[in-house]
């Protein structure tokens, strides 16, 4: 867990440091009573101080032996099923524009149910098709008929 904490702290400090690089691009208006840089600078600098404090605390904290190890935390987080689902979802979002909303949604729904199912057979395929058809009808009614939205 200590390694995970340090990893988070590193990510956090880098994130705020990158945000800090944008502060110099802000300029003040002469008539303004309060500098427009004040609040962003406060957020970034206090945030960075927090990050450094937490990093120091984690580095010098005692009793970390009982906490779960990095591999114990990260292995379930990156297990095959979760990553497959995430991959399919990212592909779906990327495919929406070129393939079209309804087609990509139907394919994602059918594919995800079929791939994630513990058993893959004709029955599962039939259920996947039925669920996909149901969700497509719902989306069509909701977006096109009810909200009158333009689908990509």
């Amino acid at each position, binding site marked *: 867990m200590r390694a995970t904490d340090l990893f988070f702290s590193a990510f956090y400090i880098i994130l705020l440091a990158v945000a800090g690089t944008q502060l110099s*691009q802000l300029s003040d208006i002469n008539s303004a009573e309060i500098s427009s840089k004040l609040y962003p600078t406060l957020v970034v600098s206090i945030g960075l101080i927090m990050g450094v404090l937490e990093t120091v605390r984690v580095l010098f904290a005692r009793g970390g032996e009982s906490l779960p190890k990095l591999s114990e935390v990260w292995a379930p*987080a990156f297990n095959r099923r979760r990553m497959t689902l995430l991959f399919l979802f990212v592909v779906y979002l990327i495919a929406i524009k070129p393939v079209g909303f309804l087609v990509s949604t139907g394919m994602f729904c059918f594919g995800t149910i079929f791939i994630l199912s513990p058993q893959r057979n004709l029955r599962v395929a039939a259920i996947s098709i039925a669920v996909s058809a149901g969700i497509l009808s719902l989306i069509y009614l909701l977006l096109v008929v009810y909200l009158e939205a333009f689908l990509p």
Partner: protein
Amino acid sequence: MYDLMFQGAAHVFLPWTLFAIFMGVAGGLVIGAIPGLTSTMAIALMVPVTYAMPIEFAIPLLMGVYCGAISGGLVGAILLNIPGTPASASTCLDGYPMAAKGQAPRALGLAVYSSMIGGTLSGLALVLISPLLAKIALTFGPWEYFALVIFTFSCISAMSEKGRAIKAFMAAFIGLGLALVGLDEASGQVRMTFGFTAFESGFYELPALIGLYAIPQLLADSDDIGRTSKILKINFKLREFTQTFGEVIRHKRDLLRSTFIGIIIGILPGVGPGLSNIVAYSQAKRASKTPEKYGTGELAESVMSPEAANNASMGGALIPMLTLGIPGDASTLMMLGAFMLHGIDPGPLLFRDHGDIVGVVFLSFFVAFAFCTVIYHFFIPLTIKAISVPRQYVIPVLLILCTVGCYSLNNRMFDVYCFLGFGLLGYFLHISRVPVLPVILGLILGPMAEEQLSLALAFGQGSILPFFMRPVSGSILLVAFLSLVLPPIITYLRHKKILKSA
């Protein structure tokens, strides 16, 4: 107060609005009953759908979802030993053993009636406290509002897990940082966009909220695919179920204590039903003459206490949201998003400018609980069926509905990509055991903090002294400071005492 109620009644007691509340409750119950799907997720799914609805119709629907989803958690907790929502975590401890002894209708009845009574009493607290607090809040200046934002973050930090307080603050700063992205209305310049024009309008709150909550939750839920959970088979008899009402009334002391705990915890910003049910259970055990029987499923009060408290938190959590614009928990944060989506900013002015909407909230809260009670009497077997739907069908459907919801807000793919981006951030925080709620609070309260700080400094000619010298703002900041400093000092002193005695 009466005029608010009458104005609200004109909107709520219409056939279609009542039907919307009923459907909201039913949908919320189903989602809340499915383990892993929280009330926050239920509201997140519904908020975009309400975009095209008039607010007088949308708010009752969402109140129905909110009440149904929090209450729905008890079914999974009692019959599966898995809480449907974190709000029912303590219900498992005695509800499941009671059901396993063949007393499932009793366990369900105790949980349902205590939920409904707790929820209704918290509704009364909401109706009585909110207008008073709103009147007081009207006298607040920017100093007090800024102090309240600080207090909110200190609350989240103080309530976080041991050793994770600074992490909660760091999460809040991520949210505050993300809120900086886009156009600064005061100076008219864009900031933190890294040259991307898409970022100039900033991050829309709802895709961020939905992404941070839904994606990590659904990814984690995919672990349950293929797992066969053992649902207790029950022979549901309505008579046996209704007989527990008398048992609930006989334990009025436990019921009132838990309700009070729930309301108070609900009012505290950033914490809600997830904590109140645990505190209420432990307090009931402490007050019991037979604490050794807790966990065995024998005592009625051990099932009632957590359920009364988690529902009581709902009314409590709505109080700061309506009167100050500060959400009491993640679900009210979503409700806040819904108000903002309809162009209404909750706060003390809401009571003056949109009294009818406040009345709608009050009345639909009570109506939702009434429908919830009715549904539980007649549709429990159906709710049981809902919890046994295989997860592989639920997860992709919910991901698609979230995507559709984010897209339909502005009809642009940028919001969908933001939803994914925030989802990945939420998943990283989930792995790192960093709470997500402070990020969202930072994102929503960031603009308010900036505006109020600028105003306070401008009014005070650059001086920060009024923050400490004004009685209300000074007191709020003092409480915030104490809530941060006292817990580690008390822990240190306790530790020292134990070492000495050893």
